[in-house]
Each structure stands twice: as C-alpha cells, then as structure tokens.
C-alpha cells in the first residue's frame, strides 16, 4: 500500500482527475474532500461491506420454502 503524509488543505491526485483533500483533522477523525467525475462512485467502505454481507446472508436463505405473499397481496 502506498502511504503518503498530508497536512490540512493538502491533497493528492489520482489518475489525473480525482482529487482527495484533507479538509480537517480533529482527534482521530479526518475529514476528506473528494472531487471526482460523476462516473466515479464514492461510498464509505461500510456500505460495500453491508451489501456484501447481506448478499452472503441472502445466499444462505432457506430454499425449501419461500414464504407466500399471495394471501397478503390478495387482501388489498
């Protein structure tokens, strides 16, 4: 892993058009500003992890019986 030291208001450029700037540092929390083209998706890693974990849980679903929603839906 490449590790760079940066101070507040300094930034790094990735692939010419993605800029990560250090906006603020308070205690153990760092605020990062991200300037990137719209097609570059930026999410917190936790979001990916939550979706990966949920997909794994979904793949473990019991397959023998899928609950029926028909009774509920018919009531409408």
């Amino acid at each position, binding site marked *: 892993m490449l590790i760079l030291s940066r101070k507040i208001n300094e930034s790094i450029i990735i692939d010419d058009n993605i800029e990560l700037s250090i906006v603020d540092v308070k205690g153990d929390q760092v605020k990062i500003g991200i300037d990137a083209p719209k097609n570059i998706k930026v999410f917190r890693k936790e979001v990916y992890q939550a979706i990966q974990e949920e*997909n794994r849980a979904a793949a473990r679903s019991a397959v023998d019986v899928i609950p029926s929603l028909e009774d509920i839906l018919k009531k409408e």
Partner: protein
Amino acid sequence: MELKTKPFGVINIEEKQKITFTRGIFGFDNIREYALLNASQWPFFWLQAIDVPDLAFILIDPLIFRPDYTPDVDESDLLELELGPDDKDKKLVFSIVTVPDDQKKMTANLQGPIIINRENRTGRQFISTNQKWSVRHFIMDELAEKGGSKC
C-alpha cells in the same frame, strides 16, 4: 440447456433466461453467469448461478411492497447496461431477498438493487445513492404499512 439449480434440481432453461453480470454480485465478484428463473411462489424469482449449483438468490420486484421505490442509480451507470432514460421496457429492477429461519422476518435489500437489461441480458448490482434505502427492509411489515395507508 440443462441446468443444475439450488431450488429445483436439474431443470431445462432457455437461452433467453441467461443473464451476464459483468462485475458479479458484491461478495461474489467472480461469478458472472446467472439464470433468471420463476419461483414457484409469485412474486419471487430466482437468480441461479450457472456454474455454481449451490448459489442462488431470491429476488422480488420491490414495487410490490414499496410502490414508492426508485433505485436512484446514476443514468451514466445504467449506460453500462446499455439502458438509456427511455428504455423502461427493457429495464428490470429487483431486490435480493434474505429469508431467515423465521420467514416472517424476511428482508429485501433496497440499497443494492439488481438491474437487468432484458434485451441484451446483462445485469449489475448497484449501490443506491439514496440513503433512505437500507440493506434490510422487512417485506411483511412494509406490506402491512402499504395496506394500512390505503385504508
């Protein structure tokens, strides 16, 4: 072709049921080829991995329990599936369902919608940009609310 499936054993599927996920599904990135099958219970579907008989996801049309659902995915992302803003007829939107032991607590993942172009048979799991949607929406509860709000 014959396909070994998790829910039904060996069945025959048609070529048009095959969907390629060029990026896989999050957490299953290397598995790219799936088949879309009707489940025996409407309104569910199965997304069966073609090369991994033990891997299958239950899908649901989220609009059935959340009529206000929109996946909130960038138009530029949908272009990867060759879906433009006017291609509503080609676009299928699904949520992956998790069924725990207590089936009443089954949930749908609205934060990671599955979108498929049924014409070129490609699909991708996206991450919704709308923070309103989470990975666990209780289908039964939301159905009850939907029914309640109609009264």
